[in-house]
């Protein structure tokens, strides 16, 4: 997880509910980036502090309690700071409370430190903002609500919906993919299942 290529959002499509469901416009993407960054960083920090108390047997439930609690607080904060965007993406954002991305981050934090949570959160936020900007540009011909001249006459509204979001996400993955990545469950969970 030392560079952009190792971003779990791009190599394992983790957090795709937020990545596609909450990035129809840049405003929505900004709210989603804020909520997910707070969730990943704070839950990573808490797990790092509490790692002595979260034993391996209780790892799944311990991490879940931390992630769900932090995500709830992050959603409240997002509702306060971005009320209009939150209203349209609250269901997608609520999936952060059981996000596999957050679980993988919390698992990695125990071994590699809080830096992993910070870098992953920033990379994920950058991906969300890129998706939001591109989708708004293509589907509405605007950026952050500001219409861009001739582009507003040549919009493809499908990219504002889920199918367009998935297609754009697939293209974004292809841009960062050099070796034909594919999902490996054991890789996601850090060790072979028992």
């Amino acid at each position: 997880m030392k560079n952009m290529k190792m971003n779990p959002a791009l190599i394992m499509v983790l957090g795709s509910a937020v990545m596609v469901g909450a990035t129809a416009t840049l405003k929505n993407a900004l709210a989603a980036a804020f909520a997910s960054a707070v969730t990943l960083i704070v839950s990573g920090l808490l797990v790092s502090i509490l790692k002595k108390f979260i034993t391996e047997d209780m790892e799944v439930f311990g991490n879940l309690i931390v992630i769900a609690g932090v995500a709830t607080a992050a959603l409240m904060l997002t509702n306060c700071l971005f009320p209009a965007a939150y209203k349209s993406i609250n269901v997608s954002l609520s999936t952060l409370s059981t996000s596999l991305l957050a679980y993988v981050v919390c698992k990695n934090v125990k071994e590699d430190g809080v830096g992993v949570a910070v870098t992953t959160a920033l990379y994920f936020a950058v991906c969300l903002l890129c998706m939001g900007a591109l989708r708004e540009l293509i589907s509405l011909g605007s950026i952050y609500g500001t219409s861009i001249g001739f582009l507003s006459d040549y919009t493809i509204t499908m990219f504002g919906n889920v199918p367009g979001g998935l297609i754009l996400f697939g293209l974004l993955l292809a841009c960062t993919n050099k070796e034909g990545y594919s999902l490996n469950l054991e890789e996601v969970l850090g060790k072979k299942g028992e």
Partner: protein
Amino acid sequence: MKDIIVTVLSLTVVNNYVASKVMGVPNAFVKDTKKINHLGLFTLLTIAISGLLGLVIANALNGLGFGFMSLPVNALVSALVALILSKVLKADKTELVLTIFNAAVIGCVCLLQSQGIELAQSYLYTIGAGVSYLVAMYMVAAVKSRIDEKAIPSNFKGLPIEILALGIIALAVLAFK
């Protein structure tokens, strides 16, 4: 009976959890296709049971003025349901983690609440949601098996082409609306 069929069909085809709501996508792309039946059934039952329980708990918490706690409480309840089901279905730890951290499980409860579906009708919705997830897993597996046989540009190999294929499935699903 007609209501059951219509609700399950509409959730399976029109409001499919993976293709139209993009929930639980990583789990739908499991590499080992032999696991699909087991993981799919496990996820279906978890969504159906925890969705129903989640709505009851959310209504109770709202009544007590603790509505803001419904998300973490439901996440925990879903995890407990998944844990119990994992013992019954003899699921391994990987499947348990994938089901607990599946966005479709908590997403079902949130959608039930946001759409104002009543408790009496919610069992149809939760069963439909679970079936829609299982159908999506089969659709993705079918597409993957065909894609694997084709010559694909190196950058598109693996997840990118699979996500693009899911986008096309989502486009087909959108047509039903």
